[in-house]
């Protein structure tokens, strides 16, 4: 067919017209730091493992999770999940129930018997003192890095505060044991009932090249209370620790708990479960400024725990406790009012905080102590070469999650130190803040709440209070993730480009721009739901 000149054209011939020259700005794909990851003290890649979970590949999701944290089943239960408080979805409807999915993955791993793989040992040997979350985390990461690990624990069982301070109803022991065993199974040399008095010489004797101190804060803070009968007064740690023994302690029908932290609530709720008809938390300030987590307070209230705000305990005579009313001054500090009253109680549990036992560190040369904590540098190393420390021993927020993060960080630094090249943490991406999202594309869906045991059953037993998600609800919850700052292949950029300048690379391979034709209109960036495209100036 000899077609007319100029007025009739061949199809698609405009490919020779490279409109990319129109561009003053170019789109680029970026990965931003999701706020959940940013908030996680254990440094988990939450968005990452949710992404895997969204696909229903729980094995893969769990694998991604434990790269940072070896104890998801435990963390999913006891972590106070700051990730959820910072979740962008919270500004849309409600935060993604991250801890529930984490717990689901952890439990699934236990059900399926998924195991860790340790790298082949390369000869270096590290001594870890203390088998709490920090010590276990360090042991795990060091084994993954190929080091031999000897873990010393003063108590007869591993787990530290996770075992001796957190009640069963919050952390069932079979879960605790399962995740600890999985770490031990990596080939960690365990020495129980072993209290170390001189870590440095112990390290040398046992032929170790470095030591990680992770004994936590074990000493209960005491307050001076004139007491007639001291046996009615005990501290929360010993109460909670005693729960692990054969003989449950007897507290009586009416129990006072003195303090305002999570431990105070644990003690009060434990007392209720031990048969106390009344458990009264006495706190010198108000609920607003109480350090305990709100969810804990709520559950305690649900269980009938009572509170006496703005009160201090002055003295004890038999079963009679004198309490003084306080009032807050303008700075918000409690001041005595002189008003006194008495309460009858069978026992008083002190939950006024814990201190680090520094005794065994006194001989370590160069190791610095400040305000009752061990001083460490940015590599978690103390003033003494090869001696690292983390967890509650060092200045920081005292939580299992933080301790796990310390363990990981310490392990990586110990590895660097042993290999003679300091570990350099990867650069952090800019934050994927809410304003970078195009939330119109996300459909609304309510958070699936974990079913909660009814109180009656809760009070009588130490069964776990919260039960887990089932596979479908877990999948649903995972899929509520907005994938903040990280492409989840929704095809929007590919679809909305008026110039067909986005190339689809296929499942899992994301997209790339065809700068030959991209005019730089920025529609792709504007319509990317998760803010994974950035417009940058073209260079002259």
């Amino acid at each position, binding site marked *: 067919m000899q077609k007319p000149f*100029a007025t009739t054209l061949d199809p698609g011939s405009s490919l020779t017209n490279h409109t990319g020259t129109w561009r003053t700005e170019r789109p680029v794909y970026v990965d931003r730091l999701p706020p959940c990851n940013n908030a996680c003290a254990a440094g988990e890649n939450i968005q990452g493992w949710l992404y895997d979970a969204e696909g229903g590949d729980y094995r893969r999701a769990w694998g991604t999770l434990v790269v940072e944290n070896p104890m998801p089943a435990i963390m999913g239960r006891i972590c106070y999940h700051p990730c959820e408080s910072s979740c962008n979805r919270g500004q849309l409807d409600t935060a993604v129930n991250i801890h529930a999915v984490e717990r689901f993955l952890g439990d699934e791993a236990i059900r399926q018997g998924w195991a860790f793989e340790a790298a082949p040992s390369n000869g270096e040997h590290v001594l870890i003192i203390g088998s709490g979350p920090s010590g276990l985390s360090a042991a795990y990461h060091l084994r993954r890095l190929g080091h031999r690990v000897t873990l010393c624990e003063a108590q007869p069982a591993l787990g530290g505060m996770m075992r001796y301070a957190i009640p069963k109803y919050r952390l069932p022991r079979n879960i605790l044991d399962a995740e600890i065993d999985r770490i031990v199974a990596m080939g960690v040399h365990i020495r129980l009932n072993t209290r170390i008095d001189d870590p440095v010489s112990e390290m040398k004797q046992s032929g170790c090249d470095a030591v990680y101190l992770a004994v936590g804060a074990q000493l209960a803070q005491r307050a001076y209370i004139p007491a007639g009968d001291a046996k009615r007064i005990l501290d929360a740690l010993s109460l909670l620790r005693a729960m692990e023994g054969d003989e449950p302690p007897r507290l009586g029908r009416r129990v006072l708990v003195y303090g305002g932290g999570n431990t105070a609530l644990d003690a009060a709720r434990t007392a209720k479960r031990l048969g106390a008809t009344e458990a009264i938390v006495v706190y010198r300030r108000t609920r607003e400024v109480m350090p305990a987590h709100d969810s804990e307070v709520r559950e305690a209230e649900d269980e009938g725990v009572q509170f006496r705000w703005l009160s201090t305990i002055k003295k004890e005579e038999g079963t009679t406790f004198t309490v003084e009313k306080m009032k807050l001054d303008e700075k918000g500090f409690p001041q005595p009012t002189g008003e006194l009253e008495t309460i009858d109680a069978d026992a008083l549990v002190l939950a006024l905080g814990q201190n680090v036992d520094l005794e065994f560190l006194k001989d370590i040369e160069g190791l610095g102590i400040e305000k009752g904590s061990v001083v460490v540098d940015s590599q978690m190393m103390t003033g003494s070469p090869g001696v690292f420390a983390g967890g509650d021993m060092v200045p920081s927020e005292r939580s299992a999650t933080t301790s796990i993060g310390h363990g990981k960080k310490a392990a990586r630094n110990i590895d660097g130190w042993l290999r003679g090249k300091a570990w350099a943490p990867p650069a952090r991406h800019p934050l994927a803040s809410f304003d970078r999202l195009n939330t119109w594309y996300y459909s609304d869906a309510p958070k699936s709440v974990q079913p909660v045991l009814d109180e009656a059953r809760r009070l009588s037993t130490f069964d776990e209070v919260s039960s887990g998600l089932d596979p479908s609800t877990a999948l649903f919850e995972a899929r509520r993730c907005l994938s903040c700052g990280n492409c989840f292949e929704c095809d929007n950029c590919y679809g909305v480009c008026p110039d067909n300048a986005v190339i689809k690379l296929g499942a899992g391979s994301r997209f790339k721009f065809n700068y030959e034709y991209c005019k730089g209109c920025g529609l792709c960036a504007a319509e990317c739901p998760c803010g994974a495209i950035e417009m940058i100036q073209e260079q002259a």
Partner: protein
Amino acid sequence: MLRQIEGSRAVAESVALCRPEVICAYPITPQTHIVEGLGEMVKSGQLKGCDFINVESEFAALSVAIGSSAAGARSYTATASQGLLYMAEAVYNASGLGLPIVMTIGNRAIGAPINIWNDHSDSMSMRDAGWLQLHAETNQEAADLHIQAFKLAEELSLPVMVCMDGFILTHAYERVDVPTQQQVDAFLPPFAPRQVLDPAAPLSIGAMVGPEAFMEVRYLDHQKQSQALELIPELSREFRDAFGRDSGGLLRGYRATDADTLVVAMGSVNGTIQETVDQLRAEGMKIGSVSLCSYRPFPAEALRRALGCASEIVVVEKCVAVGMGGILSMEIRNALSGLPLTVSTVVAGLGGRAITQKALRAVFQRAQFGQLQPLTFLGLNENVVSRELERQRDRRHSGPPAENILRDLRSPVCP
């Protein structure tokens, strides 16, 4: 088969014999009987494989034809006068896209003042639109030209207008030899488009062309029409061989070879002119005539050969370029430039004014003695116009001419 039928019917029959696939029609006097006839043939099943579409305007009529032709269907429509002007934009478009549409023009005057009668102002207004324009002298030729037009259009991939005088031909009952389907099929092959809208072989038809190529596009269009100058006589000969009669061609002379005075005209008026020529010949005047069939392409060379021998050329044309004069004669003057002869213009039959032998005879005789004005309006009522002109000289606002002229016609001083 010989039949005594109306011109419009004859055209409808021969268009139908060309097996058109899409016909679109919007009524306008004097074209109506043609499309009515075709519509009837489609409805009755006499014309098969054809879609007859009643559209909402002439603009749509030609636009539909543009679409169907581009999609590879043999397409036909017909119009006249205001209708042709209303579709003007599409007229240029069809030729620019090289679509071989055939359209009948029932030549009619253009208003204002509105007038339904015959002259050539309408097709003349589209003379530069890139279409071929063929003028029929008789109803027989009108019928025959359509058969040739489809072949011509499709071989060149250009649209063709077949012009026939409104009423004078369209409404006249005459003897017409209507060919058989076999004859027409043998002469006219099925439509093989130069380009076609086909999902299997996509094309973009109707691109925007800028300064860098527009000139070339037009030049090529011009070349195509020049090719038609050879193709038209060829097809006419072919037609004679197949149908046994002379129709079409670029032009036809009548007693022209030895004439001193030659009359040139287009369309049906040539009949009356030839009668007049015979009279004058009988009286010894060396006069002849040339009937111009192909106005576009304009056969300058052929005209030069046909007219060169004469000394007096009288162009009788049914249109006037107001403010300039005769259009056809201007082009003929151009074609004959340099030859020792005079070309005078006789504007005749505007708005259906009868062109009589008597009046023609008079101007031809004047021409013979070189007394013919360069521009003559045949049968003009001098009295009326001179009074109107006087009136306008007297006062600027002389009222609407039409009324004044009526008054003059009634007033006794007029003969």
